[in-house]
């Protein structure tokens, strides 16, 4: 029974048999390797096949640098807007009461479920040439940003919402009774509690926006040095036969994605620490 007692002390620790045994581990890692790791290894290998100089040459081509800068810049702006808009939407969904709230809450998930090419076509129909509002952002950076905002909408909302739901209003009431204004209450009490959630939502939105392709491809027009983002650049390079150029820029995007994921892991640990202290 000694092993049982040890397991009880550590409920997510070692378990037995089929459920989490070494067979499950082997199968799981085998599948992950075949589906995810092997292709990525081939990508990295291909990008290095012509040597480090060739890799550097491909990454520093003016068109590649411009596309990379635009991807990062647009994703950063998109993440910032999401931080504000996403938090506001989450707040309204948790703290406000109005008719149709359940429907609005459900609609938030739509960008996750809608194919990205449909998202792009949708925005182009409304905000493109001949649209009903007379607004035309097709083939501009504003159009690109709009597409990114559409696909990243749920990230911050869905990260902040559960934290806000669990947040006790007692502290806020205490602050209010001591004479704090609503802005002061938000800044001093609510915001610090939400910050880890906002940051991890923002980071996911940023990662998604850096690599977005489907939503962007129709509306941005893909004009080199103006509206061409990295994912579109990679696609174009592959089409024109420059596989190693495509691979080199892809490795940069891969590194950015991994970096953001490690950052999110750090936010999560920070949040759990805050939860239990």
């Amino acid at each position, binding site marked *: 029974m000694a092993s049982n007692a040890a397991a009880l002390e550590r409920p997510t620790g070692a378990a037995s048999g*089929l*459920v989490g045994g070494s067979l*499950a581990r082997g199968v799981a890692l085998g599948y992950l390797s075949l589906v995810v790791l092997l292709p990525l290894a081939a990508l990295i290998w291909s990008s290095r096949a012509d040597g480090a100089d060739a890799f550097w040459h491909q990454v520093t081509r003016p068109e590649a640098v411009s596309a990379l800068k635009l991807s990062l810049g647009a994703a950063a702006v998109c993440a910032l807007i999401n931080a504000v808009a996403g938090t506001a939407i989450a707040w309204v969904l948790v703290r*406000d009461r109005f008719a149709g709230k359940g429907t609005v809450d459900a609609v938030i998930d739509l960008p996750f479920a809608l194919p990205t090419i449909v998202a792009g076509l949708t925005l182009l129909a409304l905000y493109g040439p001949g649209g009903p509002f007379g607004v035309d952002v097709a083939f501009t950076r504003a159009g690109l940003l709009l597409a990114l905002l559409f696909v990243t909408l749920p990230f911050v909302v869905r990260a902040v919402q559960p934290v806000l739901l669990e947040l006790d209003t007692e502290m806020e009431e205490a602050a209010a009774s001591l004479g704090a204004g609503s802005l002061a209450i938000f800044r001093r009490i609510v915001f610090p509690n939400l910050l880890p959630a906002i940051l991890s939502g923002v980071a996911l939105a940023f*990662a998604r926006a850096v690599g977005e392709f489907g939503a962007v491809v129709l509306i941005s027009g893909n004009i080199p040095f103006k509206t061409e983002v990295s994912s579109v650049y990679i696609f174009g390079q592959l089409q024109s036969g420059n596989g190693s150029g495509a691979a080199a820029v892809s490795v940069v995007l891969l590194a950015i994605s991994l970096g953001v994921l490690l950052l999110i892991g750090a936010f999560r640990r920070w949040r759990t620490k805050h939860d239990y202290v």
Partner: protein
Amino acid sequence: MSRYLLRFGALGYLALILLVPVGFVFYRAFEHGVGPAWDAVTSHQAVHALELTLLMAAIAVPANTVFGVILALALVRSRFPGRGLVNAIVDLPLALSPVVVGLALFLLYGRGGWLGGLADHGIKILFAVPGMVLATMFVSLPFVVREVVPVLREIGTEQEQAAETLGASPFQTFWKITLPAIRWAVAYGVVLTTARAIGEFGAVSVVSGKIQGRTETLPLYVQAQFEQFDVQGAYAASVVLALIAIATVVALRAFHPREETS
């Protein structure tokens, strides 16, 4: 006062970014009546694209469900060196550009790639269904794992240990104890996986070669029709995909009963 400002600000943003655009596509698709829209989605090419899309989902979703549950079990229940790294790799498809995914498969299975020799033996991966399935599996891998992991953490192993003490085989323990406990999380993950599998564009776009009537899924068909100035066809196919997305959102609600009292 500020409460109404916030409410209308948030809802206005949602309307402008999301609701009005999606609604407008429905309007555009049915602008000239139901007839042309119906003709567009029942054309030979559109029907083939829809069938191919469903085939992708029919292969990728069960694979990612079974292996997703196993991966979740491995991540939660066992400790092995590099578990943190495996965790990050499981999330990678969520954060990685789909074009990069497609390119990685292209380089692995293409001419000169490590597994490029398969083509010489008559096993065609690129510009064919297998490559497209692999791309779909890659991008939709994390969803079941991510939904199941927190539930497994929460339920712990006490009940499983009790079952084992009472003489249940590991298989019985899984079917009678573990699976019922995680079934809603699995269902939720399956819905998300299906939505992603049906809608995938970038990765499939790279590996499929976009051969009309052969390797064209419905999202690829939308782009092709739009670029061939068959805007009506593009809108009609978009509406089919949007309806699938709306069904997905409804299903997500059904599978995720939250104990919200407000």
